[in-house]
């Protein structure tokens, strides 16, 4: 299974969502996407964007250095 990482560190809301949105549009179904973020708001925003656009949030994890949102692409091409 394909797994890609998107580096969203140092980006403030809503840029992490925009980076994920623009990348996910190009990815095939089933791809796992790991967004690495420094803005803690991404832990709410990326899952909210996933809920609105039909993608599956697999996990969210926070460490002392970063916040991680892992999602699975479900319906590519159906978002901006």
């Amino acid at each position, binding site marked *: 299974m394909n797994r890609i990482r998107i580096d969203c*560190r*140092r980006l*403030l*809301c*809503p*840029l992490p*969502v*925009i980076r994920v*949105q*623009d990348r996910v549009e190009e990815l095939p179904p089933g791809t796992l996407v790991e967004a690495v973020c*420094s*803005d*803690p*708001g991404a*832990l*709410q*925003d990326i899952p*909210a*964007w996933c*809920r*609105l*656009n039909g993608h599956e949030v697999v996990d969210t994890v926070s460490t002392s250095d970063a916040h991680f949102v892992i999602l699975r692409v479900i319906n590519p091409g159906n*978002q*901006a």
Partner: protein
Amino acid sequence: MLAVRVIKEQGIHVEGLNFFTGFCVEGHTHAVRAKDRERPKRNNALWVAEQLGVKLHFVDVVDEYKDVVLNPKYGYGANLNPCLDCKIFMVHKAVEWMQSRGFDFIITGEVIGQRPMSQRKNTMPLIERDAQVQHLLLRPLCAKLLPPTLPEREGWVHREGLYGFSGRSRKPQIALAKQFGFEEYSQPAGGCCFLTDPNYSRKLRDLWERRSGRSYELDDIILLKIGRHFRPAPNFKVIVAREEGEGNFLHGYRKQYISLRTLSHPGPEALIEGTVDSDALHTAARILARYSQGRNAAQVCVEVEITDGTKHELQVPPFSPQEIPKDWML
């Protein structure tokens, strides 16, 4: 929020667009600051979309938006807010998006007379003309005060289900929100754009004046939102974090800007933007020391980190508050 709901009430499929200009005031910009961390960490556009049950699409317009900010055809408002040009730009971008995705028309939540620049009855036709929207822009909250648009004339939307709100009072909108059962909504007083903020606009003007021309990059306009800004001389500026959250954020820029931190006493992080000599570094270190817990000490040790990672230390006497001229503070 209301405009979408009004149109959805007619059984019409609606999706949302949110344009990111770089000047947006969002909860997460505040979340950088530890003192604001009790605020909900949510993007309001996403939250509203979830409340309404509509998809939301973000559109990054940072680069294209520069021309709107730098060369507004219709000028600025009270600060550096080019509201009318901004509205025209966004409606035009929405038209492009609509056409590329096969949608039929655009709606906005505009109300005649609600805003002094961009929501006047005489500017609304101008927006339609300049944005090249061709009768496909429907304003559900004030449509009954305007000529019927194509969606109304074609019967896609029933005009009798639209509204005729006008003026600065939000009472009719609040009443409609209550009718729809909306218990929470964003504050109706606006303020969603940093360009309307006098302090931010002053810092942006300073940025332009100190450069060879009016221009900016995304990092420039993000950094204007963070910290205290001092300009002791035309060739450099010092940005001092106001607290830990901002310090952590500024720390991320240490490979792009010279950074300073206090070693002998707890204190904030600072960045230097511009070109500096040893005197300027000394001045920047004294400013930083003034905001550290060594502010009353005879000397404070400050670490200076150059962008290539090399470091050296300076021993400086902190400035007293009276020693920092007011015109240094942006």
